[in-house]
């Protein structure tokens, strides 16, 4: 990498890191009723939020059986799906969210190694 590039990357990384410290997260978890997988997804995201986003997140859980219209704009393909609406860009993670590293990467809280 050229020098400018590496400094740009460093700067970008710092930006990200700073973002992680101060910006407000708006998360939505779309589940299907009370399946075990839904329970796990809910449990997992709660833990992640408390550990990494304490005080700066808003988590909404939507049951697509009970509230079918709420998922319409989000282009949900499968459930459970976690959507990070804010901060941008929009990110999407499918599954029971038990792979913490993957979730954190998906939420732009980690760089993939």
């Amino acid at each position, binding site marked *: 990498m050229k020098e400018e590039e590496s400094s*740009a990357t460093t700067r970008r990384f710092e930006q990200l890191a700073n973002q992680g410290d101060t910006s407000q997260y708006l998360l939505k978890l779309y589940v*299907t*009723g009370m*399946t075990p*997988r839904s329970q796990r997804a809910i449990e997992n995201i709660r833990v992640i939020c408390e550990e990494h986003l304490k005080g700066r997140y808003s988590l909404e859980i939507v049951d*697509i059986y009970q509230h079918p219209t709420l998922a319409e704009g989000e282009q*949900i393909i499968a459930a459970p799906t976690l959507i990070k609406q804010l901060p941008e*860009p929009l*990110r999407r993670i499918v*599954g029971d969210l038990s792979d913490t590293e993957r979730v954190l990467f998906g939420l732009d809280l980690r760089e993939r190694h």
Partner: protein
Amino acid sequence: MGIHETHDQALRRENEDLRHRLSEAVETLDAIREGEVDAIVVNKGGLRQVFTLEGAEHPYRLFVEEMQQGAVALGQDGTVLFCNHRFARMVGSEAGQVLGSRFTQYLSPASGEAWLGLAQMAAKGRAIEEIQVQRQDGGQFPASATASSIQTPQGNLLAVVVTDLTEQKSFERLIAAEEALKGEAARKDSFLTMLGHELRNPLAPIRNALYLMRKGIQDPVLMEKACAITEHQVAHLTRLVDDLLDVSRISQGKVQLKTKVIDLVEILRSVTLDYQPVCAENSLTLEVSLPSEPVQINADQERIVQVVSNLLHNAIKFTDPGGLVRLSVGVQEGEWCLVTVKDSGLGIPQEWLATVFEPFMQRRETIGRTRGGQGLGLAVAKGIVELHGGTISATSAGPGQGAELMIRLPLVNPVHHPPPHALAAETPEAVRRRRILIVEDVLDAATTMKLVLEMWGHTVEVAYDGRTGLEKANSFIPEIILYDIGLPGDLDGHIVARTIKATPGLEKCCLIAMTGFGSPETKDKASQAGFDLHLAKPVELEALAQVIARLPVLENR
């Protein structure tokens, strides 16, 4: 592109973004392939469908199967596409039988309209309606149906949840019955209180009159007044007690009518003659309007007279001097006869009109003077009229504007019967001395009757029980025996009558039963037992005098 970004940085950012999105897509596909999702969402033709993978819907299925209500999903042609086994059990069938059948076969015919309304409303949102569900075995039960519409690409489904309301309804009925009973009990309590007062009212004047009779025994004018008062009050008391017993018997369905074809015009003509004097006394005008042709009905003459007398009595009671009482008889549509009693008296307020025929209803005029009356007379009248297959109604323009009571009775198909001859009234003749035996256990009743008969010139003996009565009959050989048929003890009326008739010398003895109830049934029993005549207690002395006077003269002994 940010201001400080170079072209390179913009490209890198875009690259980063694309990589994210690619990895998201790949991971989503992986998750689906590995079965790490519960459901897949498909958007087809603008309609979103959630396809649930196995296991995810298990709890819902469990709920639907286990819940207390029946659940069905119907296609647009009314076919059952899904039902839980509760519904199948509700209608007495099997899920396998219910599936594919027409839902309307599980509705009672009467519920058709309600069901249509429900289905229409459900198209706009959830709707709920009460229906009658019909089981396969023909039985029915009340139910509540909640219906909502489900949209699918293949058309709309109607999801219905059915709740059995049988228990709730019977509970509601119990509550209503309890309320009704409470109301009845309250009304009876209030009735008993008023009855107590009513019965007590005549006692005071009677007591006073007796005092006067004791003190004023030398004064014929005073005696006359005292006697008149006592007579009047006793008549009132007798009427009250008779009405009371009638009401009780009618409400227990124990009244039997002795019907025959009678001419109402003739009967009522003589009734009005009886009431002329009373009306004159009260300065009331009595108008009578009767058709010239006979009006024939199938009825119990005594009871019809009782009813019309009742109405006339009320009209007179509630109309001030100078007023008018009118009795008219007419024919309606060739099927009914109408008897109307109209008066120009106190009238009936609108709010009482509906309940005026019920017993136990308090009725007090608001004019400050109470004329008493329990409304018993009207209750009896209604009972009797209805037993005859007729109706009775009351109208009034309001307080102070009089009232009109109307009875409707079915006409008999006119078969010409010679009108029954009214019994010619006997003119009192000189009384022939008779030997009379009284068998009565109430001391005062026996004593007073003995005194009266002796005053009339007869020879009288008294026995206070059945056995003594038989003994005395043997020794005294009376021509007439006045026998209280309600005597306590084990001597049956049958036995007494037979024994007496079998006694030499007593074969032609006139056996008169004194009946405590005076009802047609008791009179029947009396004559079946072998008694020649019956008189209702309290025995009317005039009636007794007539009976004695008409007896054939027996040979001297």
